[in-house]
């Protein structure tokens, strides 16, 4: 059963700030959703292999040829903060 501590821990893993009321609601909602998901445990999965992908394609490669990349100004155009032709972020904690 998922607990308030689990929710706080997972939110931290996901880099997601939850307000106290949000976190509390989340615990109840996730418990209910995961309760439904636990239905999967009824199944005997034996040696059934996992499906990550439905297509029969493996290692799709392209020619390793140089070509123009995104223009620097375009790449920076949507950034909230820019300095010295780079993305600017707050200092590391």
């Amino acid at each position, binding site marked *: 059963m998922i607990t308030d501590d689990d929710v706080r821990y997972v939110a931290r893993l996901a880099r997601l700030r939850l307000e106290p009321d949000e976190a509390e609601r989340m615990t109840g909602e996730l418990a209910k959703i995961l309760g439904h*998901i636990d239905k999967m445990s009824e199944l005997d999965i034996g040696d059934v292999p996992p499906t990550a992908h439905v297509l029969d394609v493996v290692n799709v490669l392209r020619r390793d040829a140089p070509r123009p990349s995104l223009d620097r100004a375009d790449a920076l155009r949507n950034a909230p903060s820019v300095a010295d032709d780079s993305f600017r972020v707050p*200092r590391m904690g």
Partner: protein
Amino acid sequence: MSGVLDPLRLKAREAKRLLVDGEVSAAELTKVYLDQIAAVEDRVHAYVLVTSDNAAKYSTKIDREMQAMRGPLAGLPVAVKDNMVTEGVTTTCASRILHNYAPVYTATAVRRLWDAHVVMLGKTNLDEFAMGSSTENSGVQVTANPWDLATVPGGSSGGSAAAVAAGEALWALGSDTGGSIRQPAALCGVVGMKPTYGAVSRYGLIAFASSLDQIGPLTRSVYDCALLLRHIVGKDPHDATSVELPFEVELPEGDRLDGLTVGIPGEYLALGIEPGVRARFDETVALVEELGGRCVEISLPHTEYALPAYYIIAPAEASANLARFDGVRYGHRAEGAADLREMYERTRGEGFGAEVKRRIMIGTYALSAGYYDAYYGRAQRVRTMVRRDFARAFEGVDLIVSPTSPTVAFRAGSRTDDPLAMYMSDICTIPANLAGLPALSIPCGLSDGLPVGFQLIGPAFSENRLLGAAHALEGALGFETAPSFRDSSASAVAGEARS
């Protein structure tokens, strides 16, 4: 000429003929839709952004440069779900976190339409990041169903479905991860198709669950669906999971189902299908036989496990895909954070809505140490079992049919407090995504005045068979009704006031 064009009934096939015959100009045709948007959009709220000036200018250019700008789709106006990036046109994914995002490139599916001189009318509303089944999770606005404005259009491509139903677009593009094209198409009384996984490039489709997402058409007829599909399919060097179809998408013409064996999975009919939906479904199955098809009962034994598996796989992929929204390169950034980690956490806390947060939490939890095998590992194995069910069934049948949605359009607000009840809306559509199969929904009648969808699922790359069968059925069904734009909540209030 444009005075007699009814945007609630006009199909792309006719519009194309009128353009080719010179009976209507591209500018006149575009104006029909811009006028309809002006007339009903304040009630429907299908669009996040209407690009009316660009549409008017571009359609005029098509008329002026008719020789250079020819092609089978030239001048036909389209609406695009706002999770496909469009260069120079704001793309929000209906999220606060992308409210100001101006893409510097264009999604391949949209690019192919632009290259064919299709006129883009605007970007349509969706559940934030395509996570939802009612479009109520939009961070921008709530879209209404044109059949009853008090009900939802379905989701997550609810804006595209409502726009087509309301005559605010000739046709539209949507995306389908667990039913997000087919379920809103069903609830809005239009045609919606999810192609085989890989048939349409996902480049520029803002990723939700990459192993499930597919772009596809929402249209007013099966013919139009095929016409739009044939111009967006094909391998794209920018998407390594895209494939070249081993055939041309054919424009369907037939009206019989002779020789076709259709499977009816008993498990789907046990999924809480409401009586009105079941009645229309049974009538449509009877029509299949009248048209020469043979219906047989089949079993897809792991159907009830598809939804639980989906609600691990899709959130797990989403939690990884949405890690990129961190306030560094684009979109919203929280103000005044003391350090980088606080900036990430507050940016995402402020920028994402409740449903997106839930999915990120479920996905992160399912992938975290100690839970991976029990949840993600198990879900991937259940996915294999669902695929095997279909493979076994298709040894004996050509197509599988079911209701698209267990209910007709439900009232706005009726499921927003119960995420699990909302998830159940996609119970009939999710298995095709897990198996990567093509599936489409056609309107098959009304229940309580609201449209009912009939779903057809085929083996991988059976698009032509699916479209052909759907076309024959559509002809026999004769569903041509236009929505009423009634508002049952307003009449209920008025009724109460009278009594």
